[in-house]
């Protein structure tokens, strides 16, 4: 294998992984920025999305339908979780929230094991993207290219939603100062639930899209949580741009680390995070710490 094809192959792998991280970390960073809640169960939304997709494909055989059902189902679960379990804890210590959401990781994992069993299940890519293409001499599954394009389109759509609409202005205001947002008459509780559900839905979407690349297994949610949290720290709390740039950096760092420095691959993303935190404690696009 020569250098150039290998490089492009890895870069595209890193890009598709980065896009998945982006869809997952957007929800995490918005929830974190707005509600001050570290939702450790956010990785579970990724896992639940994959299984919701699996179930939809098992029943209908339609991958595209799975891409629709998974986010809706996981968004619903997210809304319930926020209303019933997290809301009563907003005025309590962050430790209570950490413990609760940590518990949900196991609860969701066992629930999935109970329904689908513990073994790894593969999700076949949709018919249209089951082949592969040559790209700078590298053979790349066409599904990965689809994931990259889809993710970048989602990034643009999310940017337009957050930066250019009234709803987006409400969300940005809520991330900046939730109390004052309520003070001008915005029903911030409803916005909290909506953002939580929306973030969960994006996490679920990320999971169903990841299915054909990484397969589905119960521990996948806990596994993706750490890189997603690192993305939030690197990009900056509550920042959409930070979430995108952080995801792309971490996606490449982890992918190239695994390929070129397999012995050190586990530490590379931590090194990236440590460097960013040392130079910019608030993350690349976070606002200055108070």
């Amino acid at each position, binding site marked *: 294998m020569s250098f150039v094809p290998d490089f492009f192959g890895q870069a595209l792998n890193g890009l598709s992984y980065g896009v998945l991280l982006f869809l997952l970390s957007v929800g995490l960073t918005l929830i974190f920025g707005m509600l001050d809640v570290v939702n450790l169960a956010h990785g579970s939304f990724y896992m639940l999305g994959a299984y919701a997709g699996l179930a939809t494909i098992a029943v209908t055989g339609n991958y595209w339908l799975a891409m629709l059902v998974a986010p809706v189902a996981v968004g619903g679960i997210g809304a319930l979780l926020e209303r019933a379990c997290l809301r009563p804890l907003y005025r309590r210590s962050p430790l209570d929230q950490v413990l609760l959401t940590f518990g949900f990781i196991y609860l969701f994992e066992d629930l999935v094991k109970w329904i689908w069993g513990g073994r790894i299940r593969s999700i076949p890519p949709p018919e249209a993207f089951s082949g592969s293409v040559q790209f700078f001499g590298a053979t790349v599954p066409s599904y990965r290219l689809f994931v990259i394009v889809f993710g970048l389109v989602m990034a643009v759509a999310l940017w337009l939603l957050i930066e250019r609409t*009234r709803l987006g*202005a*409400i969300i*940005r*205001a809520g991330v*900046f*100062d939730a*109390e*004052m*947002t*309520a*003070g*001008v*008459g*915005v*029903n*911030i*509780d409803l916005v909290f639930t909506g953002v939580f559900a929306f973030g969960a839905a994006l996490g679920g979407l990320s999971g169903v899209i990841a299915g054909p690349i990484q397969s589905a297994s119960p521990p996948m949610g806990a596994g993706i949580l750490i890189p997603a949290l690192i993305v939030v720290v690197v990009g900056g709390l509550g920042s959409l741009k930070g979430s995108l740039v952080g995801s792309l950096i971490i996606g490449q760092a982890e992918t190239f680390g695994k390929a070129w420095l397999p012995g050190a691959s586990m530490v590379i993303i931590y090194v990236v995070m440590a460097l960013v935190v040392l130079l910019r404690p608030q993350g690349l696009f976070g*606002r200055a710490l108070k």
Partner: protein
Amino acid sequence: MSVLQVDGIHTYYGESHILHGVSLRVGAGEMVALLGRNGAGKTTMIRSIVGFTPSREGRIVFEGDEIQRWPAYRIARRGVALVPQGRRIFAPLSVRENLLLGARADGWTLERVFGLFPPLRERAEQAGGTLSGGEQQMLALGRALLTNGRMLLLDEPSEGLAPLIVREIGRILQALKGERLSVLLVEQNYHLALRVADRVYVMNKGQIVYEGTPASLEADEDVKRRYLGVA
């Protein structure tokens, strides 16, 4: 008839008891000043009224509704507009977005606010956080006016502003008196408050210690010295 009636409220921050049975009222179209030293409880009073820090005891009646248990957003929608201490502009939002976030149709429009504060029109697409202190105060006031509340709560609108801009704020407050607005003005700047207010309350240690007119307070050297530190 009172637009706002506060009846013996007790408010706490955690376990510390800040307001000890405070009562006051604001009549229709009236401008009432609430004075007192730092830490007297003035801001807590405002926070209790708007629902940020709900009182544990007592009643707050706005236009006939008991609002002391309502969430903050409902109180705002019911017609209580707030210019908070420190202005609390949404720094990442544009000036236009700041103004329109809580805007409700009726009376005040974006055009009227731009007419009252021309610098805001020039900076409409700029991020709120890039404005100067005086401009941010205009923005906070414009944002409150656009919610089209009938009661305006102003918490230290002159804080940290240059004397020239404080005079400008005074002029705007005078102009607002002509509207159908009732105003509760919390101020450290005693001279500004006395110039625009119809009635005055003085707070100390979480209680109302004086109630009167600007003229009667002006004449009461004892109250001025003891509670306001004015010689």
